[in-house]
C-alpha cells in the first residue's frame, strides 16, 4: 500500500475578491523508502500540494489517504506531530531557541523525558552531519545550510515516517546542496522514509527516484525511476 495517495485533489484559495484554483484534479501515489521530487514553474501549485500533504488544510475536492485512511478523518495536528514533518526554505527554526532546543521541541510536544530528548537530539544532529559546536547556537548565528540541516534533524526527531521539504536547498551553495540531497537520499533509502522534495533545481530532481512535474495546478508524471 502506498504511504500517501492523492485522489483527484483540487484546492481553491478563496479570498474576498477572487478565487484561485491552485491545484486541479491531481492524483498520484507516494511510497515509503523513496525520494520524490516535485518540479514546475513558479505558481504552479507545488507548495499548495505539499501543504495539503502535510495536513495543514484539507483539499477542497478529492481526498488524500494516509496509509489508506482519509486525511479528513485523522487528527491532523497529531499526524504532523507523529508521522509527517515539514521543512521550508526559510524560517524553519524558532529564532529564540538554540539548535538543540529546536530539535528537542517536537519530542517535548510528545511528552518525552528531557534526558531522552537531549540524547535523541544529539544523535539526530550527528546524523545530519553537524557537530557539537552547533548545540548552543541560535539560528541567527548559523549558516543557511546549517539551519536547513538542523531543521531536518528536528523533522526526524519526532520519529515520523514522512519528510516533506519545500525548496530545502533554495538558499544553499552547491556544496551544501549536495550534502542535503545526500542526506535526503540516505533517509529514504537507508531509513525507509517517504521523502518528497519540491525543487526548481535540476540537480536535485536528477537525484530523485521519481519526478512529478506540475503546470497550472495540474500534474504531469515523468515516471523516471
Amino acid at each position, binding site marked *: 500500500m502506498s504511504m500517501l495517495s492523492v485522489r483527484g485533489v483540487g484546492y481553491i484559495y478563496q479570498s474576498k475578491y477572487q478565487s484561485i484554483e491552485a491545484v486541479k484534479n491531481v492524483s498520484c501515489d507516494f511510497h515509503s523508502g523513496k525520494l520524490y521530487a516535485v518540479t514546475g514553474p513558479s505558481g504552479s501549485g507545488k507548495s499548495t500540494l505539499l*501543504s495539503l500533504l502535510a495536513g495543514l488544510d484539507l483539499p477542497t475536492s478529492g481526498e488524500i489517504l494516509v496509509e489508506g485512511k482519509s486525511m479528513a478523518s485523522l487528527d491532523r495536528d497529531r499526524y*504532523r*506531530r507523529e508521522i509527517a514533518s515539514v521543512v521550508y526554505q526559510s*524560517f524553519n*527554526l524558532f529564532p529564540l531557541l538554540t539548535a538543540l532546543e529546536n530539535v528537542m521541541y517536537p519530542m517535548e510536544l510528545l511528552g518525552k523525558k528531557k534526558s531522552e530528548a537531549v540524547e535523541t537530539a544529539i544523535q539526530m544532529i550527528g546524523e545530519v552531519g553537524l557537530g557539537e559546536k552547533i548545540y548552543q547556537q541560535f539560528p541567527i548565528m548559523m549558516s543557511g545550510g546549517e539551519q536547513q540541516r538542523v531543521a531536518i534533524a528536528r523533522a526526524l526527531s519526532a520519529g515520523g515516517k514522512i519528510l516533506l521539504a519545500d*525548496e530545502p536547498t533554495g538558499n544553499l551553495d552547491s556544496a551544501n546542496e549536495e550534502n542535503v540531497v545526500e542526506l535526503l537520499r540516505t533517509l529514504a533509502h537507508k531509513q525507509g522514509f517517504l521523502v518528497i522534495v519540491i525543487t526548481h533545481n535540476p540537480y536535485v530532481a536528477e537525484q530523485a527516484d521519481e519526478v512529478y512535474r506540475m503546470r497550472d495546478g495540474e500534474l504531469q508524471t515523468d515516471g523516471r525511476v
Partner: protein
Amino acid sequence: MFAIRNALLNAKRHKLKSILVILACMLIVIFLFLYIGGLEANSRMLENLPEAITIPARISNLSGTLSTGMMIKESVIKGIEESDYIADYFYTAELGAALGAIPEDKVSEMEQGRMNFPLCLGVNRLSAYTDLNEEDVTFIDGYGPEMLESDEPVCIVRDRDLALWQINTGDTIDLTLFYIIYPNDNAVKDFRWMGIYPVKIIGSSRDIVKPDAERRSMQVIFPVKWLQKLSHQRETMFFADAARFRIAKPLELNAFKDEMKELGLMSVISQAKPAQRGIALIVSDETFIKAATRLKENISLMKSFMPFLLIVVGLVGFVVSYLLLHSRKPEFAVMRSLGVSKKSCFIILFFEYAILDLAGSCLGVLAIAAFSSLTVSLTAVVVTLFFCAYMAGTAAALVMLNRFSVMEVLSALD
C-alpha cells in the same frame, strides 16, 4: 506541564516584551488600586457618616419659633420613645409649685393675681435640662442623677431656695403643684391647681445665671415620669413642654420622617401664627444630607464608571497582547506545522501572558503596599478584576491571531 514550562521559557526569551507587559500590568494594577481603594474609602466614609455627623432634631410649634414652653401631646412623646429611628431623646415638662400644702379653694385669689409661681421642671434625664450641667448638682448619699429617670417622688432644689425656705437636702417636703395651660394658645400662662404631694429632696443645684439660657432658672427639678404617673392617676392629660433627640439611623432619614408624619408632626410653616402647641418637627439635617449626597454621588459616579474602566483595561490587554504577539505569527505557524494544535497554541501563549500579568500584578501590589496599608479583600478584588478584564483582552487577541491560515503564513515566508 509542557505548556507552563514552555510559557516560562518563552517569557524569559522575549525579555524586553515581557518587561513591557509586566510594566503595563503593574501600572494598571496601581491605577485600579487607587480607583477601587478610593471607592471603598468613600463607601466607608458614608457608613461612618452617622458617627461623624449627628443629626439633631426637636419638636417646635408650627411657626418654628419655640423650643420650650410648648404643649406637646403625650402620644408624640410615646412615639418618640418607641421609635427605632431615634436615640437619646430628652423631654421636659414645666410646672408651677409652691412650698407647703395649699388647698384648692385658696388658689383662686392667687390665680387672679396671675402670680408667678416658683417654676419646676420635670425631666426624663438630668441633661434634658440643657442649662444645667451635672457638676452643678450635689446629690445626697445613696442617690444619683439616674433617680431623675425613675417615676419616684424625688426632687432637686436650688441652693438659694433651700436657704430661703429653710429646708435641707434629705428632707421630705410638701409641694403644691400647679399645671400650666395656655388658654388663648399664646404665651400667656395660666396655672391650675393640681395637688399636694410629699417629695424627698435628694440633691441641690447651683443657681444658673446664663445670659443665653433656654429658660428661666428652675427652682425644683423632678422626674418627669413621676408627673406622667400622677397625670394618669388623676386621669388628666399630660403635656411635655419641650422634646429633642438624635436620629439613630441617619441613612434612613426618609423612613424616619414618614414615621414622624404618622405621629402627627408637621414641617415648620414660617408664616404660621406663633402658637404653643408643639406639633412641628425640626430636623437639622442639612450638613448631613450635604455630606451624604456628595459621598453618594461620588460613589455612584465611580461605580457607574467601573464597567467602562474594566472594558478599557480589557482593551489595553487586547492591544498590548495583539501588538506583541503579532510579530510572533511565524513562530506560531512553525509551531502549528510541527503539530501543535490550535488549542495548545492558545493555552501556551495564554499561560505565558497570564504569568506575566500575574507578575505585573504582584509588583503593583508591592508598590502600593510600600506606600499604604492594604487589606486582603481589597487586594483580592483588585487583582481578580484586573486579571479577568486584562486576560479577556489577551484571550480575544489570541483568538484573533490564532485564526490565521498556517499555509498562508508559511508560504508567505518562502
